[in-house]
């Protein structure tokens, strides 16, 4: 069964190519992302105890926490991600982490979720969202989720920022789930049945 044009379920579950691409702009977007996500990643690593075991954080696009008052542009951008990711990959990777750890043979991991809620005027969130949108836009257009020309990528960061400041709301909350588990010291990993 094709999960999306040209991508089979098997590819999706194994070694599909990185959907955001591998160019300089993507590397810059990743740097922005690291900056935006740093507080919640640090919080997660503190929860886990650095070096205590294996730590993984994943997005979970099965849901996003809406802004209030509603911000139309922010919601529209989020909907593109929420509609696109299930077609290309495991949109609820975050919620699957516990199961994946167990399948890999780790003891039941502790799972914690953080939601990126940011509304500060000087936040790098706006720029990061736009660069993320830029990375997926060709696929989103190809799949008919976005009309060509619908987003003005040169101005949308400022529009997002202005919208959130005008409505006095935080950005739509992107969910990051984290899981950590300790590898047993003496026994080999035993994948769960």
């Amino acid at each position, binding site marked *: 069964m094709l999960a999306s044009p040209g991508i089979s379920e098997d590819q999706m579950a194994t070694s599909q190519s990185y959907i955001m691409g591998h160019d300089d702009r993507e590397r810059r977007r990743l740097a922005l992302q690291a900056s935006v996500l740093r*507080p919640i990643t640090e*919080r997660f690593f503190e929860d886990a105890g650095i070096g205590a075991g294996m730590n993984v954080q994943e997005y*979970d696009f*099965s*849901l996003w*926490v*809406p*802004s*209030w*008052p509603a911000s139309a542009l922010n919601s529209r951008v989020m909907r593109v991600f929420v509609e696109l990711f299930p077609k290309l990959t495991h949109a*609820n990777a975050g*919620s*699957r982490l*516990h*199961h994946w750890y*167990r399948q890999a043979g780790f003891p*039941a991991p502790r*799972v*914690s*979720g*953080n*939601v*990126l*809620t*940011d*509304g500060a005027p000087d936040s790098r969130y706006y720029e990061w969202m736009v660069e993320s949108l830029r990375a997926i836009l060709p696929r989103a257009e190809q799949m008919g989720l976005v009309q060509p020309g619908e987003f003005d990528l040169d101005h949308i960061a400022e529009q997002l920022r202005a919208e959130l400041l005008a*409505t*006095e*709301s*935080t950005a739509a*909350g992107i*969910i990051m*789930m984290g899981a950590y588990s300790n590898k047993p010291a003496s026994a080999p990993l035993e994948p*769960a049945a």
Partner: protein
Amino acid sequence: MSRAYVLGHSEHERRRLQLQGAMLAPYTTRFFVEAGISEGMRVLDLGCGVGDVSLLLGHLVGPAGAVQGVDIDEASLSVARSRAVQHQFPNVIFDRADIADFSTDRRYDAVVGRLILQHMEDPVGILRRAAPLVRLGGIVAFQDCTPGLNVPSWPKCPRMERALDLIARFAVLAIPQYAAGTRLYHWFLDAGLAAPKVETRVLTEGGPDSVCYEWLVETLRSMMPRAISLGLAEAGEFNLETLAAEIRQEALETGTPMNAAVLTGVFSLV
């Protein structure tokens, strides 16, 4: 005047609140520490219920600090006072008051509340009245969830999912501010509180020893009469005596943790 508490003031509701308090304690402690609550501070806990947040604050402020919890329900306050004695917190006191119009001449280093604004008709008004109770440079910090919002657990557990879905749909119809968590940031700004900081967490619980299964069922128990009258559930649909064990077993067999709630904390310095 506050409107009636949707989940009632019964004995099992007070027990449910203690289960909930145990589940939320690590998240709330961390949030208060991040907000700056520390040893020696005087803190007011609005809508303290059976005292979980006040006792947690008692640990944070230590013997040199002081905590005052206020709530409208005398039976809950009685439980809270007993727990303060039991845990040896002479500096944690409880007073009866309606937080919707609470006033005092005292000044505090911090005014806080957890899962209380969602039940209030005028949450912004409460925040407005909280600010003058805090000394200059003091802290206003509230934590609330968005009970109408669920992060789906995976793999699917039908019983757990049905229970969480029912709670979410009940919240939308019965809880005055069912989206309190997502609105908290805006309420702070609306109340004139400057530069609020916000953090939101998904409460993911599970494992054989978690209290989350019991908490889930006690929440159903508290809301069930009203849920039935609202047409959300049928009488006899759940066997509440066995449901916690059933959900626990289902979750352990499938290896599914429970995404129990989305909890947002916002604090601001006055």
